[in-house]
């Protein structure tokens, strides 16, 4: 346990010190939530703007941390030989991944709490909170995005991975109904949104925060499918160093 605890603490330390990652994981979600709830420029459907925005921003925050932040950091660690070096210690690769996951979960919990508090200050009520939907979105959303992030980080070189993670982030942000109501998008895009992990997560989060009463079975299945696919792909293709033969 000591090596795992030490590595988890080190991961959190580095994250807190890394300004770009903090901006991505905390700054952007908070800014989106506050800005679009105050400035009414988005098609948010009927009802209070904050009720529409909060689930989407929670989904964005989760995607930022589990995919982009983890993926970019892991990609650069791979380029710098950090993963290779740690692979020669008793930490071992399973515990290294467990430490990274623990760091992701801690950051996501903090994100959710901060965003919920800000949303409450902006008029959101927690009375309709659906804990099962929240846990389902949290667990399977995290698994899906961690899988995608590690797949890209473990196969692409540092800078290409950086571009790919950010590009995918932007694409999912715009196409999945996270901050733009999917019903206001063309029908083709609407269907695409429901099949994307970001769209499925946003749907689950709407139920979780009480904005919607629709069932979560279908989007949960979408997330489970993405989780399985991405994690298996990451496991099969991940190389720990750009010059490594797979061990």
């Amino acid at each position, binding site marked *: 346990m*000591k*090596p795992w605890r*030490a590595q988890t603490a*080190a991961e959190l330390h580095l994250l807190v*010190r890394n300004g770009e990652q903090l901006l991505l994981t905390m700054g952007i979600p908070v800014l989106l939530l506050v800005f679009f709830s105050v400035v009414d420029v988005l098609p948010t459907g009927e009802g209070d703007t904050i009720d529409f925005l909060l689930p989407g921003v929670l989904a964005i925050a989760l995607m930022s941390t589990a995919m982009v932040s983890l993926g970019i950091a892991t990609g650069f660690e791979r380029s710098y030989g950090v993963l290779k*070096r*740690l692979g020669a210690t008793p*930490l071992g690769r399973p515990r290294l991944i467990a430490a990274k996951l623990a760091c992701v979960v801690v950051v996501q919990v903090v994100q959710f709490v901060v965003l919920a508090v800000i949303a409450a200050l902006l008029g959101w009520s927690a009375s309709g909170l659906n804990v099962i939907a929240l846990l389902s979105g949290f667990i399977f959303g995290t698994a899906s995005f961690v899988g995608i992030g590690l797949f890209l980080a473990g196969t692409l070189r540092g800078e290409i991975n950086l571009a790919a993670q950010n590009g995918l982030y932007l694409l999912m942000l715009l196409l999945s109904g996270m901050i733009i109501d999917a019903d206001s998008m063309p029908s083709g895009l609407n269907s695409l949104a429901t099949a994307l992990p970001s769209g499925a997560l946003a749907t689950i989060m709407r139920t979780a925060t009480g904005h919607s009463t629709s069932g979560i079975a279908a989007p949960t299945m979408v997330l489970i499918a993405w989780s399985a696919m991405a994690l298996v792909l990451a496991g099969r293709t991940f190389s720990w160093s750009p010059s490594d033969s797979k*061990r």
Partner: protein
Amino acid sequence: MVVEDLVVSYGDLRAVDHASFNAAHGEVTVILGPNGAGKTSTIEVCEGFRTATSGNVSVSGLHPLRDHAALTRKMGVMLQGGGVYPSSRVGEVVGLYVDLYDKGASADELIDRVGLGHRRSHTWKQLSGGEQQRLSLALALAAVPEVAFLDEPTAGVDVSGRQDIRRIVTDLATTGCAVVLATHELDEAERLADRIVIFHQGRVVANGTLAELRAGNDGLRFTSSPELDDTELARHLNAQVTRGPEGRFVVAADPTPSLVARLSQWLADHSLPLNDLRTSETLEAIFQRIVDSTGDGQ
């Protein structure tokens, strides 16, 4: 550590070609060779980072891949590229590795031992190349290793840093650790090695102690004017004199004080200079001789 008939190939390129050698506890084994000779590939197989195409490797009785988890508890590693995140601070990263190995090493002592006490709060990217090498060495020492793999430990290190690293490496071997050190720096190898394994184009072309590698090649070596008449000198010394490139000469005889005196006198009588007088073959000369004898010297 035992390496037997090791082959490492990358596609059509054979990086290591049937290499065999041993490294013993309490000794510094230097793997020597030019860039691309197969040193790093060999070490990476021993560390469990790379899969061998064929051959057998055993480190402290363990298979580097199958027993990797057990091996990591016995092995200290210094990678060529460092392997530290640029924003990690010296104190934090050494502390982390001490905790990862959990073998009772003290982070503060390790930092002081490698001479980075004044850089504790600096990040990796703020350190000079030599300081980064020192930090990498501290991470290897955090393992309190039974076997240590050090890849180019003195690359980019200044003179005083090299002395510190040499002292640490020698101390490490004194504690019973098997130190396996890869370098292409001949003088470094000559100063540190108990045993030398010379790689050339993927093959082990020599393996032994410095004395063993010099065996049969004793003699007095010196540099003088290319105008020197080696036939007359050989007659005067009653020994064979071989002319090398750039005014280098070898007298094939036991390098006694009497021989040195007669040589000096003869050079003085002929107003010829005497430089780089040595009573043994340098590692550079050994290396060149061995590579030349393989028939494909560079």
